[in-house]
């Protein structure tokens, strides 16, 4: 039953997104950036979801260190992985948008650099988990690293802002007008993306539970 609800919710989220593509394609051009601006409809909700995931990962990691309850560990890995997938999409869509508006794929400005560092940190988190066998140790070390990573992100953002204000800026936010009737589509995409993220996290959580069941079955098999 729980599975079916999850799948239905996931399909609903994807349907909203698909329907919105059609609606967004019909919207008029944005005054300064033209059609390419519409990537923002995907790009920004993606980042919103990724940032929500990062905050949730911090809470889950602290929760694990305080309670030593493995549900928090499962939650932490689930949100980090989904957040990393969203971050990847955010980076790629942003890069494509930049190629059209700025004329370059990548620039070392504050947001892009800090996003890339963020991506590297959370990818490192997942690799660290892969390298540790023992479950308690894995959960503890991963939680510690996750806290370190989360603290790092605001420092990176500020430091790179200073770094870039000292240099001439090659490009900057071109600034766009955002008509009010676009906002509805934007918000729908936001809702759909968050819903999709929640479904993915729930699926990932169940997989983590299954993994633990496998481990305990293995132990009983050994004990016999």
């Amino acid at each position, binding site marked *: 039953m729980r599975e079916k609800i999850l799948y239905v919710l996931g399909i609903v989220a994807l349907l909203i997104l698909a329907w919105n593509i059609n609606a967004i394609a019909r919207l008029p051009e944005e005054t300064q950036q033209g059609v390419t601006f519409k990537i923002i409809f995907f790009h920004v909700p993606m980042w919103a979801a990724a940032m929500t995931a990062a905050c949730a990962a911090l809470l889950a990691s602290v929760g694990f260190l305080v309670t030593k309850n493995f549900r928090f560990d499962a939650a932490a890995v689930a949100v980090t992985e989904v957040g990393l997938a969203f971050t990847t999409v955010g980076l790629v869509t942003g890069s*494509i948008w930049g190629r059209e508006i700025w004329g370059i794929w990548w620039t070392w400005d504050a947001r892009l650099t800090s996003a890339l560092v963020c991506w590297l940190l959370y990818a490192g988190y997942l690799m660290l988990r892969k390298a540790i066998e023992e479950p308690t140790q894995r959960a503890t070390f991963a939680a510690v690293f996750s806290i370190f990573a989360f603290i790092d992100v605001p420092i990176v953002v500020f430091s790179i802002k200073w770094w870039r204000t000292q240099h001439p800026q090659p490009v900057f936010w071109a600034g766009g007008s955002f008509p009010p009737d676009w906002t509805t589509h934007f918000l729908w995409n936001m809702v759909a993306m968050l819903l999709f993220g929640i479904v993915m996290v729930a699926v990932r959580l169940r997989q983590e539970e299954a993994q633990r069941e496998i481990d305990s079955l293995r132990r009983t098999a050994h004990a*016999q």
Partner: protein
Amino acid sequence: MNVISLVAQLVSDAERLQHQYEFLSYGLTAAWVILVIYVLMMVARERKLKREIASLRAMLEERR
């Protein structure tokens, strides 16, 4: 004369639009492709886990 410049304007507008739509479609395709790959990875892992549980359960049954 006026007509010719108008046509030229229209053609260049259409070209610009096409170029922009091209990039819009790249962006959307990339976003969807990454998400689909992630979902597929999730499905593959789900299958692997289910198979593993089933085989372990069968093994335990056998031993009993």
